[in-house]
């Protein structure tokens, strides 16, 4: 778990954030016709980045490797789909809290059952629950079964009768997602700096010592699991809002595995690493796919090269790089 971020790295990340935030300005000039699509693509990547950060709280911080995290992502999306009236817009101030409460409750139950196990066993228990979630929506007629369900009208965001944000507007939604990304990052940073966060981080390093100090690791793990699940649900809520479509595949283990790859590739326990991981993985996929039909090959080579050359992921490289510069003359 990284607590100290070197100043140079902080500046670099901030620059990257500004570049991203200003994309609607410069993207239009550089990409012209493809601008709208790329903005939507970046929005999608940011949603995955939020999901990856939430998983990092489990994998990188608390040492709980989950292979069922997408279940909460998908559940968040389905919450919106199920609560949206068919012909009308839902009120965000109602469906968002209600949806997240539903996801949190599910995460609490799954977490309560799963955290008794550890290591590979934890991976597999979470996989089992994730797959059960997948089949729940795949097999039932509740929301279109395997075909998925539509959200015809996006939720309204109103205060005192005036619309604050139109989620249908792609530019607005870009900034809403960016706001959530930054907000979740800040929230997790604050959380990890708090006494609670220090215990969670300590559990990730050595659970028995934490227990020896008189804390109950189970309770802390459960809270972390629930928080991570809820944030994943928030990401899923955004994903469902973006295209107005949910499908059981959102909950499946492929999706969970994909996000786990982002976390490891980006650098576990750094929070910003998984965000970078999401961007690199998705943009590389995008680039390779437009270059060759055989995109799996360069993708696989890239993943292996990063594992072999960058021991602590992309974040590790950046940390080493910026730290050395600070130490230098």
């Amino acid at each position, binding site marked *: 778990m990284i607590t100290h971020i070197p100043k140079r790295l902080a500046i670099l990340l901030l620059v990257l954030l500004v570049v991203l935030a200003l994309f609607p300005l410069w993207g239009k000039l550089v990409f012209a*016709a*493809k601008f*709208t*699509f*790329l903005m*939507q*693509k970046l929005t*999608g990547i940011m949603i995955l980045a939020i999901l990856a950060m939430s998983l990092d709280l489990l994998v990188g911080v608390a040492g709980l490797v989950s292979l069922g995290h997408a279940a909460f992502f998908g559940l968040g999306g389905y919450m919106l789909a199920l609560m949206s009236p*068919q*012909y*009308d817009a839902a009120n965000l101030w109602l469906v968002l809290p209600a949806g997240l409460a539903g996801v949190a409750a599910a995460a609490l139950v799954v977490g309560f059952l799963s955290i008794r196990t550890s290591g590979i066993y934890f991976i597999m228990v979470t996989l089992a629950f994730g797959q059960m979630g997948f*089949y729940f929506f*795949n*097999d039932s007629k509740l929301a*279109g*079964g*395997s*075909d*998925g369900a*539509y959200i*015809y*009208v996006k939720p309204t965001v109103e205060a005192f009768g005036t619309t604050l944000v139109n989620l249908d507007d792609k530019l607005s939604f870009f900034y809403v997602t960016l706001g959530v990304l930054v907000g979740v990052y800040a929230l997790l940073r604050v959380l990890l700096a708090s006494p609670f966060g220090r215990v969670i981080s300590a559990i990730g390093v050595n659970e028995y010592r934490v227990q020896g100090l008189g804390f109950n690791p189970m309770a802390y793990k459960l809270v972390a699991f629930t928080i991570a699940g809820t944030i994943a649900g928030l990401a899923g809520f955004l994903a469902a809002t*973006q*295209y*107005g*479509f949910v*499908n*059981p*595949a*959102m909950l*499946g283990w*492929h*999706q969970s595995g994909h996000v786990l790859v982002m976390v490891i590739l980006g650098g576990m326990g750094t929070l910003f690493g998984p965000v970078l991981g999401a961007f690199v993985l998705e943009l590389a996929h995008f680039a390779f*796919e437009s270059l060759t*039909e055989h*995109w*799996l090959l360069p993708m696989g080579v890239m993943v292996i090269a990063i594992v072999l050359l960058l021991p602590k992921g992309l974040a590790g490289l950046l940390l080493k790089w910026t730290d050395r510069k600070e130490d230098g003359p």
Partner: protein
Amino acid sequence: MDIAKTVTRRTILQAGAVAAVGVSGFVPTRFAIGNTAKVKVGFLLPYTGTYAGLGEAITNAFKLAVEERGGKMGGREIQYVAVDSEANPAKGPENTNKLVTGENVDFLVGPVHSGVALGMVKVVRESGTITVIANAGAGAATGPLCAPNIFRTSFTNWQASYPMGKVAVERGLKNVVTMSWKYAAGEEALAGFEANFTKHGGKVVKQIMVPFPSDEFQANLTEIASLKPDGVFVFFAGAGALKFVKDYAAAGLKSIQLMGSGFLTDGVLKGQGEAAEGVLTTLHYADALDTPENKAFRAAYSKSFGKEADVYAVQGYDAAQLLVQGMAAVKGDTGAKPALIDAMEKAVIKSPRGTFTLSKAHNPVQDFYLRQVKGGQEIVVGVAEKALADPATGCKMG
């Protein structure tokens, strides 16, 4: 549904209006480009994973059809853009958007997977992009979700299974077990069979749904053996179909007539070998159809790609035919959308499967053949249903 319809229709109209303004504003340039700019056709098909073979066949045959027609549509050259759908419904809307918004394609062709189709339909209903579904049989796409810009050159799951219902009764198979994977396509297929089957006095003894995509059938085969039905009707495709037919034969169930929609044997017949002997299927195509169109198509396909064409290739081939006809009617002016759609609606496709037209919901009205495997070959027994149209329940178009 009604209000949702008007909402989306309004958006389509608005999109159309915006496009119209755009076109009128740039008429000179547009016209100038008109003769030189390429028509962009986007493929949203699986090129990796289990369904990769289907994506390949559809793409190949589409290009073949275009080549045979001079390599142009409405006098314009064509540029292809392909996106790997990975048969992943979760990515359906995003991958569609990549073609629609990112590549600004004039036409969209795809997909194989029904879940991906539903995600795709969501996006193109809003964008108004003219789309031809070249495989996915999801009923909703030409049912409640039908739209002026959405066409299909394949089938609906209902349509491909319905004809066998009558055939089964005619052959004296009164008590039948039905079986499929537990997913939307399977449920729609079994419902199609059952509707026709019970209408003619048959009785479905038991419906077995197995988890998707499990291919361990042994327990269910034992169950079928103990039920001793007159026949078994199944919906499986691809690798699962190959395995099911082999397992069925190996379990000694050959004395019970096995029936299915044609996907049970299409493209996997060789791998099934002797196990497929005698299997009855209905489909809108058969390799052995003795028509000049089919013979020419199969010869050209195997010459170009070194392998045999299948039903998926036919669907891709006809997707191209449909677009070529539409584009010919508007002389390559993709901006004339209403006229283009009108021409496509009225198209008469001389397909390798036989000539077909489109229903008001834009789904093929086509003959369904009864086929049986004999001596390792798919033999055409006859026409099971002539000019069968999907009921398109819920479609309020036209």
